[in-house]
């Protein structure tokens, strides 16, 4: 539960910060406009997958608990 809370907390902070800090990038490398945009898109696409991946054990545990419960009921 705590890690779930932490997750929502992180997401909340991210959203908040994204509203608050429009800053120029001060890097000596040019990230490249195309590379920046593809990074935004890929990031959005893989972010969810990554969340599922790192929480996979918890998700599996959640469902397997249910499954084993069902199984014992059937017996």
């Amino acid at each position, binding site marked *: 539960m705590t890690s779930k809370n932490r997750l929502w907390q*992180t*997401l909340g*902070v*991210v959203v908040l*910060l*994204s509203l608050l*800090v*429009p*800053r120029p*990038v001060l*890097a*000596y*490398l040019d*990230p*490249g*406009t*195309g*590379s*920046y*945009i*593809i*990074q*935004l*898109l*890929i*990031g*959005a*696409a*893989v*972010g*969810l*997958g*990554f*969340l599922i*991946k790192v929480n996979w054990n918890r998700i599996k545990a959640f469902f397997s608990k249910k499954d084993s419960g069902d199984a014992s009921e059937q017996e």
Partner: protein
Amino acid sequence: MRVNKSSAVGGSFRDPSGFVFVVEGQVYRQINQVYREDYDRLMTSGLYAALTRDGLLIPHTEADPALAQGERAYKVLQPERLPFISYPYEWAFDQLRDAALLTLRIQRAALEHGMSLKDASAYNVQFVGCRPALMDTLSFEAYREGEPWVAYRQFCQHFLAPLALMAYRDVRLSSLLRVHIDGVPLDLASRLLPLSTRFRTPLLLHIHLHAKAQRRYADSDVGGAALARGRQVSRISLLGLLDSLESGLRKLRWRENETAWADYYAHTNYSTAALDAKAAQVARFLEEAGPQRVCDLGANTGRFSRLASARGAFTVAADVDPGAVNLAYREGKDKAETNLLPLVLDLTNPSPALGWANEERESFAERGAFDLVLALALVHHLAIANNVPLERVAAYFAALAPQLIVEFVPKSDSQVRRLLASREDIFPEYTPAGFEQAFTRRYDIVQCVQVPDSERILYWMRQKAER
């Protein structure tokens, strides 16, 4: 490294955060005022301690501030000395991939400590023996939530694109890194990669679509900058991006059986007894010569290089065959060897000086400072397969090191007969006498021994004093 009195190192000028310079043979890194905050954060956040503890970052000490060059200095660092600077186009597949994985691991550690890598250049990674480590202390900046990874494009160009080309097209395409100083352009990689790579998600995303996006938004009229402005990459997205890059890298496999030399020892005409006798004789020469820094040319998988490294000499095991070098590296990695550095090097065209004003990357010979060259079962390939006159072979060896252990393989040997089988023999001087005549113009022969059970001769030579 150059050993002038206080000179900036040629490849250290792009990043205004600081630069590397040499004073009386000692290498220093200046931190400029502009990098002050980030440097202090690196040192106080626990990131420096964590990275150096795990051997991921080359450690440094803070040196005398009086060494500073110019008024912009904040601090002067003295990094732990590296025995040899190597470049990505000299690395075998596993070396480049390990350097890539190291970079991702460091970026993850940096994010945990509130920092991020501001560059991801393969040139910032060096091998300490068979272990990669980041050598650029200036690569870190404060991470600000929502910012994209500014080094993403560079990472794809320096690591993912060449590795994908090596894995899916041809391992020799690592040479593209020698042509393109800032990594393989993604549009080029995308064109060269086979169609099947479009069905591998990480390669589709990070190379093919990435190249497409670059092309589409290259023109400022398209409004890419306006599209990107103000948009954020969340931390989760950033971690997902790193994870996707890593899984892409881990799935890349080098196709091992494609190269010519990796099974050389299995196909040689040496009997086991003769090979052992040769090793014993080379070991005796090495013991007497007592070198600190050895360059084994034509090292294959490094069997004879290890005679030198095992007795404590730092040894570069160079070979033209990327497969053999890969095997040498894997063995060194498994055994955690610290003074053996396997490198891919085509002796008929060794790494030149490259980059801006040809000063960014030094030639192979410039970086050497070797005491001894080991050249076993090599000279016939240079003299006969490549038509290099013996005197020129001697001259290049002499430019690399004052001492030489060299093997002469006569024409009667089946290996040489094979080289001569399909061509006219235009090498009348290729005899033991001709060989000695060519080499003794530069060297004195300290000892020469016929390898038992073979027709080959081993020489230990020392350069003449007056040269």
